[in-house]
């Protein structure tokens, strides 16, 4: 054991330290460069995506679950809400894309909470890496998961009869809008994950808040069918605005106004919650 250990550490002064004179004379960098920070971000994003390979349940979480939602809503509720499954699919697919992305932000929050609780975050912070990399790595990974889920939903939707009414540019713009909006909203969930004691609490809190917000929007049903007091809220609900914008960009109808309003919400969420989340992050770790 001892000899193996010696070789493990001894070669440190040789191969790991080409410029330095051994011992404490190792060449140190004064700070993390931006390029290094981005590289570290992608290494950590890789780590989050590799986790999926070892946890098939997570694959179900962000692949099977959205497809299940799509099928249930189209064939169970579709006829009743939209007249026919096909008519409803054209209305609901954009809403389901938004709903699914929103719920994916919970992954960011519970994942962060798990890392904090299990001490992996301390390991990361003890390394000479950019301070933003752990958080950014998780966000990049979740954006990748969201993109995958959106493509999957669009593909399955196409098989079920959904047709894009605009063009490829419209679809890309819709995807981009969803990513920007959910990224902004995820700041609020990052804050929750910093304040909550464990991942389970984050999950419960997220569900209790995200569920009603999503279902009181026009993601699944038209606002006009709701009682008056709910209509007022639903029209201001950011989930409604994002859904409207995605509909406009992917199917038909006005996209400009809801898109601009969605982006204003995104700015507001970022301005309010990003500093709070970063402050809570610094206090917690």
């Amino acid at each position, binding site marked *: 054991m001892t000899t193996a250990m010696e070789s*493990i550490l*001894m070669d440190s002064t040789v191969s790991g330290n080409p410029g330095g004179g051994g011992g404490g004379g190792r060449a140190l960098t004064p700070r993390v460069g931006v390029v290094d920070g981005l590289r570290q971000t992608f290494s*950590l994003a890789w780590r989050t995506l590799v986790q999926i390979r070892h946890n098939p349940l997570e694959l179900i979480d962000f692949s099977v679950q959205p497809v299940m939602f799509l099928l249930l809503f189209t064939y169970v509720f579709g006829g009743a809400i939209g007249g026919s499954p096909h008519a409803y699919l054209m209305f609901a697919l954009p809403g389901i894309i938004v709903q699914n992305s929103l719920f994916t932000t919970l992954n960011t929050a519970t994942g962060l909470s798990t890392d904090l609780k299990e001490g*992996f975050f*301390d390991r990361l912070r*003890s390394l000479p890496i950019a301070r933003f990399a752990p958080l950014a790595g998780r966000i990049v990974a979740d954006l990748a998961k969201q993109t995958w889920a959106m493509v999957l939903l669009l593909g399955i939707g196409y098989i079920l009869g959904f047709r894009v009414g605009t063009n490829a540019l419209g679809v890309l713009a819709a995807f981009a809008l969803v990513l920007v909006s959910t990224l902004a909203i995820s700041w609020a969930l990052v804050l929750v994950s910093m304040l909550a004691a464990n991942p389970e609490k984050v999950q419960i809190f997220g569900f209790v808040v995200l569920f009603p917000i999503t279902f009181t929007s026009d993601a699944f049903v038209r606002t006009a069918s709701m009682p008056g007091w709910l209509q007022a809220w639903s029209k201001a609900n950011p989930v409604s605005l994002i859904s409207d914008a995605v509909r406009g960009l992917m199917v038909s109808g006005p996209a400009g106004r809801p898109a601009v309003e969605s982006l204003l919400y995104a700015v507001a969420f970022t301005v309010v919650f990003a500093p709070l989340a970063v402050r809570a992050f610094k206090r917690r*770790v």
Partner: protein
Amino acid sequence: MTYSIVAEGLVKRFGQTVALDGIDLAVPTGSVFGLLGPNGAGKTTAVRILATLLRPDGGHAAVCGHDVVTDAHQVRQLTGLTGQYASVDNTLTGLENLILIGRLTGQSRAQARARARDLLAAFRLADAADRAAKTYSGGMRRRLDLAASLVNRPRVLYLDEPTTGLDPLSRNEMWDVVRGLTATGVTVLLTTQYLEEADQLASEIAVVDRGTVIATGTPEELKARTGALTLAVRPADPADVPTVTAIVAGFINAEPVATNTTVTAPVSDERLMPAVVRRLDDEGVVVAELTLRGSSLDEVFLSLTGHRTEEEESVAA
């Protein structure tokens, strides 16, 4: 002598709780330095400050000449952290965990993979390289934790309670690993609640209590001061306790501790025993129990501080 870690007057508060109340440390380069104390003494808080995870509220500390607050990035390039609070990703395999850290610390893909394989082999984890860390036993997990902290070839290594919660076999394995490290010139700062562990591994020990260092020295010096052994005498007749106390006091420098039935005292020389037995016999004391055993941390504390260790809630988190 050169020092790899120097801390002066470190203070850290968490709300009303004072976790560190002015800690001074000087850890010689290449040594294993033991930070010995009970739960809540401030050991982990001190390590977290030295590993740049916490900012001290007062005092300052430097690792290899780099201030832990102003030169944190340099300090992180020189240090490795293993312990209760620095962990691996349970869902990744052992290999993936080590590769991730290699990549994060600037190694190429090939370098990171080769280094990970070397470390896994050295820590006898090669067979488990492709299994998720959550399937590892407690001992394997600690070894993986330790391997993770060595990926970046640290000059200073923090081992925060490396054997807490391990079974005796895994603990002995861990001790062998730490002894192996010392042969390589790495400076190790080890925290522990176990006197025996500090005695086994450390060349110098600082005893920490309530956020301050209450004693420092080599294990031998500390044992000489506090008594590495504890003598316990229980007379058959409790009425003999004062007599026994007086006899024992005649052999040691410290004041023996007497309960209603038993007299205990720290001693440093086992050759004392026959002499004590003769005196007890001369005085006609009938002894029900007479033992000489290794001192517990509690007893060392008692002799150093006059109070027993308090199992306080750890305030370090």
